[in-house]
């Protein structure tokens, strides 16, 4: 039995999804096989999981029947498992035909016939097993009976080029499926100078092919392989290739597909490729085996499968690991905790040492706003990755509908999730010394002693272990991000925004030991040439406040600064920028502005390593600045004409509704000339009839025009 999923008779003539899946673990004529060893075995051996991988792909396809871009119409399966390989696959039936050459040729022919019944058909070809790199441009797939000694060495192999070419419109007819997917997971024998001259050996044709001139297919080939000479070390385990493929197909490579207001989630050729490429790069590094991965064929971005729910992406909500390492970028880790089940008002057992702390109303919203801002605004380096951990309150979810969608995708801000996200964030940070890292935490914070700052995670006070087990110490966090001999490529520009209180509850006076969880082991201090700037929302021993149900005071001030409120003019380039140093000048101004009229007083503090400036972003436009020109004394106002000109000498319009003492302007930052004059008959004189000024945010610039009687 090859055809395990047959077309519904009622659907005859309609388009459908046709799959051919092949998995070969058992190669009798290769090393460790049950029959006579092939003369040209080339060191190849049995594979431990290729047939099972193919079976899992088959199961995936059937299970995703409802989510495929075309109705599932046929699935052909050929498996050559090892004796005990399929023991754990209860649905596996030994009646599935084996992946010999003859069976393959028959199945491939039937598959092509089905595929060529309707241009809206879609096909999938999956092969897991051995392959040989016959030439620089051609690989052949080895069937079970490879090396049986009958005919040429490559008789029981099929050329992928031949198979792919045979599925072209020119060869298969105008009704051939326009969307075709090919997945190869192979243990590949790579050519080398001392190896047989395969160019003169011929694989068996699956199809008769004529030259293809115009190929109108969308037909990507996802080709992943590890070298057969490393198969021993890898235990011949094709799962290394197939598992990530299935994980990504199951949603980890999900991406939103917007149609008007509707958002559908899908896995597409591009979204899958974006995940597989860095995955294999990273795997190569970890296992010290060169995994090869390539997207070839005709790689158009078509949908492979739809998803019923947004994918659970863990914390990584934007970016791709590994691929981002090719050039420096910004790597962000954002954490927002409003929901503390073990604090007052929480949903679980109250912590023994709750320290009077309650649920928060805007920490997760704050983290979300910071995330949105990062996604929306161009920064000084490309945004490479964003990790987000959120523990929102129900009220926040009610207030911000978009937050609800995001929350489904990311993990909650528990200690374990934080440690995992931090580790991955650190791994990304260490890909290039020119990277910039950004850490933002909004939630509860405390301090045990002077200079200390502890950040509390969602599961704080869960009763397991010490009180501060589910919290992290910022000294440990920052210390572990230093470069060292083993991670010399660590980002040298690091921004930390700790949007939390630093109150010192009296409970800390009662205990000799209260230790936080270590995010990592921190090496002894070595040369630390980072610019690691830590902006803390509160002074030691003080509180950080929030605009209930909106966002924290600190985050509002910070975003105001980043929007241009901390803009500075670079005289050399004429560009406006926001940097760590310009934040110093503006953050407190916007904090004060936000808390004006409130009872809360809040002051930020910055610490860190290294003093050099980090440019966070360049502004597209000059930031707005208010210019106030009072006339002194006010009695002279009616007789004084004030004009303001920009750098091009264009007059600027004063705000209407002037009061009787000053002129007011809202202008883009930059250079302006203020000119004042008195009526011709006026005997008084102006102290500064003309003055050039530079308008830079944050505060309104007050430039008095003084009229003297002398």
């Amino acid at each position, binding site marked *: 039995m090859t055809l395990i999923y047959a077309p519904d008779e009622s659907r005859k003539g309609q388009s459908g999804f046709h799959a051919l899946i092949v998995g070969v673990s058992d190669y009798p004529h290769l090393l460790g096989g049950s029959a006579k060893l092939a003369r040209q075995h080339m060191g190849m051996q049995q594979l431990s999981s290729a047939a099972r991988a193919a079976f899992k792909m088959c199961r995936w396809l059937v299970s995703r029947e409802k989510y495929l871009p075309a109705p599932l119409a046929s699935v052909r399966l050929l498996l050559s498992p090892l004796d005990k390989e399929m023991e754990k696959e209860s649905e596996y039936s030994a009646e599935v035909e084996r992946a010999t050459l003859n069976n393959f040729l028959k199945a491939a022919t039937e598959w092509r016939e089905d595929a060529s019944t309707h241009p809206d058909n879609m096909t999938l070809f999956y092969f897991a097993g051995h392959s040989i790199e016959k030439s620089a441009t051609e690989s052949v797939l080895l069937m079970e009976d490879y090396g049986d000694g009958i005919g040429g060495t490559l008789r029981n192999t099929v050329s992928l080029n031949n198979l792919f070419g045979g599925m072209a419109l020119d060869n298969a007819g105008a009704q051939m499926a326009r969307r075709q997917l090919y997945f190869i997971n192979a243990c590949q024998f790579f050519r080398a100078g001392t190896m047989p001259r395969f160019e003169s050996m011929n694989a068996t044709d699956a199809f008769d092919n004529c030259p293809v001139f115009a190929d109108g297919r969308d037909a990507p080939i996802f080709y992943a392989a590890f070298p057969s000479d490393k198969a021993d070390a890898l235990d011949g385990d094709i799962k290394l290739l197939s598992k990530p493929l299935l994980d990504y197909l199951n949603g980890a490579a999900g991406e939103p597909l917007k149609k008007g207001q509707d958002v559908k989630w899908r896995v597409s050729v591009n979204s899958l490729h974006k995940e597989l490429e860095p995955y294999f790069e990273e795997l190569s590094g970890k296992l010290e085996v060169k995994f090869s991965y390539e997207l070839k064929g005709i790689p158009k971005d078509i949908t492979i499968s739809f998803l019923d729910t947004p994918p659970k992406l863990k914390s990584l909500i934007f970016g791709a690991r590994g691929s981002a390492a090719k050039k420096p970028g910004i790597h962000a880790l954002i954490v927002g905790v409003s929901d503390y089940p073990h604090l007052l008002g929480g949903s679980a057992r109250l912590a023994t040492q709750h320290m009077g702390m309650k649920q928060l109303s805007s920490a997760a919203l704050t983290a979300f706003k910071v995330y949105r801002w990062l996604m929306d605004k161009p920064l000084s380096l490309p945004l490479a990755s964003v990790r987000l951990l959120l523990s929102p309150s129900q009220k926040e979810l009610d207030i911000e509908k978009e937050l609800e969608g995001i929350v489904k995708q990311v993990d909650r801000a528990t200690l374990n999730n934080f440690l995992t996200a931090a580790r991955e964030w650190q791994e990304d940070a260490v890909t290039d010394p020119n990277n910039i890292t950004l850490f933002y935490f909004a939630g509860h914070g405390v*301090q*045990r*002693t*002077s*200079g*200390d700052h502890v950040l509390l995670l969602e599961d704080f006070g869960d009763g397991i272990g010490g009180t501060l087990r589910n919290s992290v110490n910022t*000294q440990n966090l920052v*210390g572990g991000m*230093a470069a060292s001999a083993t991670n010399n490529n660590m980002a040298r520009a690091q921004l930390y925004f700790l949007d939390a209180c*630093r109150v*010192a509850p009296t409970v*800390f*006076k009662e205990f000799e030991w209260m230790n936080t969880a270590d995010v990592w082991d*921190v090496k*002894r*201090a*070595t*040369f*630390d*040439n*980072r610019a690691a700037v830590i902006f803390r929302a509160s*002074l*030691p*021993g*003080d509180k950080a406040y929030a605009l209930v149900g909106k966002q924290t005071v600190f985050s509002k001030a910070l975003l105001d600064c980043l929007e241009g409120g901390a803009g500075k*003019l670079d*005289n*050399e380039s004429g560009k406006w920028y926001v940097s760590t*140093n310009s934040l*110093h*000048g503006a953050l*407190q101004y916007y904090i004060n502005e936000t808390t004006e009229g409130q009872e809360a007083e809040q*002051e*930020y*503090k*910055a*610490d*860190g*390593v*290294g*003093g*050099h*400036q980090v440019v966070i972003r360049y502004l597209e436009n000059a930031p707005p600045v208010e210019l106030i020109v009072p006339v002194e004394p006010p009695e002279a106002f009616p007789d004084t004409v004030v004009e303001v000109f920009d*750098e091009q000498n264009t007059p600027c319009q004063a705000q209407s509704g002037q009061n009787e003492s000053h002129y007011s302007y809202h202008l883009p930052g930059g*250079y302006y*000339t203020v000119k004042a004059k008195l009526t011709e008959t006026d005997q008084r004189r102006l102290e*500064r*009839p*003309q*003055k*050039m*000024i*530079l308008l830079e945010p944050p505060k309104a610039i*007050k*430039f*008095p025009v003084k009229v003297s009687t002398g």
Partner: protein
Amino acid sequence: MTLVLDERANLKDGPGFHALIAGVSAYPHLSGGSGTPAVDSFGLRQLTSPALTAHKIYRWLIEHKSNLPVPLASVRMLLSPSESEKEVEPELDALQVDRCTRGNFVPEVRRWREDAMSHDENITFFYHVGHGIQLSRSESVLFLEDFGAPDAPLMLNAVSVQHIYNGMAPPGDPQKEMARTQLYFIDASSLLPPAISQMSRLSPPDIFDIALGGLDDRRAPIFYASVPGSLAYAHSKKQTLFSEALLRCLNGEAAVPSDNIHGEVQWGVSITSLMNGLTKIFSDVSEEYGIDQRLSVSGVGSDTIICYLDSPPPVKIILEIDPPSALPFMKIEILDDAGVSIRTISAPITPHPYIFDLAAGIYIMKATMDPPVPGLKEVSPKTRLVMPPSVHWKLKVDAS
């Protein structure tokens, strides 16, 4: 004597500026010293410039006391000069200040703290120059003259920067006052000697009893001359690079314009501008000497001016014209912020780049070509804020 300036009686309950300066060059128990060698000297030797450096800082404070935001009320100084420094600067001896041993340092720090507690609007100034190491990522330690004395724990005659800093935090009792602006300058290397990692715990003795952290609303930056794991350098028998950079900054190179109460521009050095200025000078100096010395700063909060300038500081202008083919015909006129022409540079502009000084401020540069040069456009006036220490002003003439 440690108190080298005492104007406290003149404060009349008002705020004052209280400085504590310590410079240690002579370490009897380190290599080349006159005392019993330390059990472990971490390879450290005698120094040739800390006492001179401390003296220069002291002189600057005395000479610029009218530029400080509050009256200079007290200056305490502890010096352990080398013989060669005394030859260079006789005042090191003449001042007859106490040596920077633990016995002298601890009571002086405590007295300095008492002075700091006389008014919330006091400003304190702490400058320590000498040997230092990084005990951990978060703890810097400074060595006093008697570091390494025999028959005592290694760290007995050392002090922790973080301990002093924490000890200067505002008291928990809101009725008690404390200087809310505190400036710390740690002019020392921050190496972590390998021998340290072999010890289970090294801890300099406390100077203060410190309460558990309460509200700390100080403006209290710590400027470190080096980042963890690196050296701080000096001009032998002159001064440290850090102090040189600091004094250059305070003398105007880190000045920024600020509004005074009359709405007029007054130039001064703020915490943030000092940080920017030091970073820039460090970068230039590192390049000049082929070293890698970096500034590290912590404890920065809301900004404030820490010293004012009597007039806008001078700025070196490096004028460059592009393309050079315009030089023979280019005439430059510079207008100040009132639109008054203050300087004309006639054609041909030579030498090129053309270097001259301007007082910091906003200027307009007008460039004309007489006669017009075929293929080159007229240049529109350029405006810019000229800030110390130097400005590279490039004038690009576009092709027509």
